[in-house]
């Protein structure tokens, strides 16, 4: 019998601390599988965020470093500029990347730093107990918007991929989701491309992964994935928002 599917060796053999049904586990596995397939584990340095994924350094078997809240792209910039032979990626949530870390994100994209950013968007602050995030949907009930997000008061959610794609700098900006098997497989392809771009020296690659938070959304894991399909994906459509190399080839 041949093995069709097993845990990648680049993911440590320890139980994940995430809540039951949290797609962080799926996204961790996709990143680990890509590292294994590209055979870059030995020279990869990951930058963990502040948020639910703060302990990602316990799970990936490559070298990891922990950044201050939102500063992962700045830390990754420093590592990559000092050690250009290493592969550097950040793994950040929406409260980290789209809120306190927005400046670092936008400017590292504008500078076209040769790093890979995995951006997990689940429209809520997970670790701190479910407060409203910059990506929470209009009308979404959270701890700090108990009557639903009022856009007249709190503003509109930010579509990070679309915004970054307007910059000249970045090489590759894509949004994927992990709500079903088809989308998970597509997400892996996008993450692999984001790492391959860095190996090829092409520049800043960001993959936004639309994820779920069953615990803080107050849903079962399956309901949460259905809510991703019915409510999140219409506001955050899946797609490739920028791919400079592919655009050049077309010309």
């Amino acid at each position, binding site marked *: *019998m*041949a*093995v*069709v*599917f*097993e*845990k990648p060796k680049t*993911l440590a053999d320890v*139980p*994940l601390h*995430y*809540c*039951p*049904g*949290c*797609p*962080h*586990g*799926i996204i961790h*596995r996709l990143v680990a599988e890509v590292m294994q397939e590209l055979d870059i584990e030995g020279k990869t340095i990951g930058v963990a965020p502040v948020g639910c994924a703060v302990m990602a350094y316990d799970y990936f078997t490559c070298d990891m470093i922990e950044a201050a809240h939102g500063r992962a792209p700045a830390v990754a910039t420093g590592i990559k500029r000092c050690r250009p032979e290493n592969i550097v990626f950040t793994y950040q949530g929406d409260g980290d990347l789209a809120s306190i870390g927005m400046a670092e994100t936008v400017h590292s994209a504008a500078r076209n730093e040769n790093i890979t950013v995995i951006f997990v968007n689940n429209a809520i602050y997970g670790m701190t107990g479910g407060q409203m995030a910059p990506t929470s949907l209009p009308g979404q009930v959270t701890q700090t918007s108990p009557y639903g997000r009022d856009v007249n008061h709190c503003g509109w959610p930010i579509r990070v991929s679309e915004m970054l794609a307007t910059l000249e700098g970045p090489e590759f900006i894509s949004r994927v989701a992990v709500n*079903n*098997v088809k989308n*998970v*497989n597509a997400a892996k392809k996008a993450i692999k491309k984001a790492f391959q771009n860095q190996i090829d020296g092409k520049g800043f690659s960001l993959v936004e992964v639309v994820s779920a938070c*069953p615990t803080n959304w107050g849903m*079962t*894991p*399956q309901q949460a*994935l259905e809510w991703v399909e019915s409510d999140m994906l219409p506001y955050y459509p899946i797609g490739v928002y920028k791919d400079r190399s592919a655009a050049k080839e077309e010309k």
Partner: protein
Amino acid sequence: MAKVTFKTDLCKGCGLCVAACPKGLLAIATEQINAKGYSPAVMTNEEKCIGCAFCATMCPDCVITVEK
């Protein structure tokens, strides 16, 4: 026939594999409790398994290994 093995003690009983199985072969074993205190997912009919690995693809905790 494919072989599906579970690292039962890592399972958190979220049920995403149960929903992903195209043949409806998986179930949450409510009469069992694992080391973490959750009721784990189990295979109910291995004979009918086609080895598509959809369950393992959706599992957030890498509980499932699929052989074919």
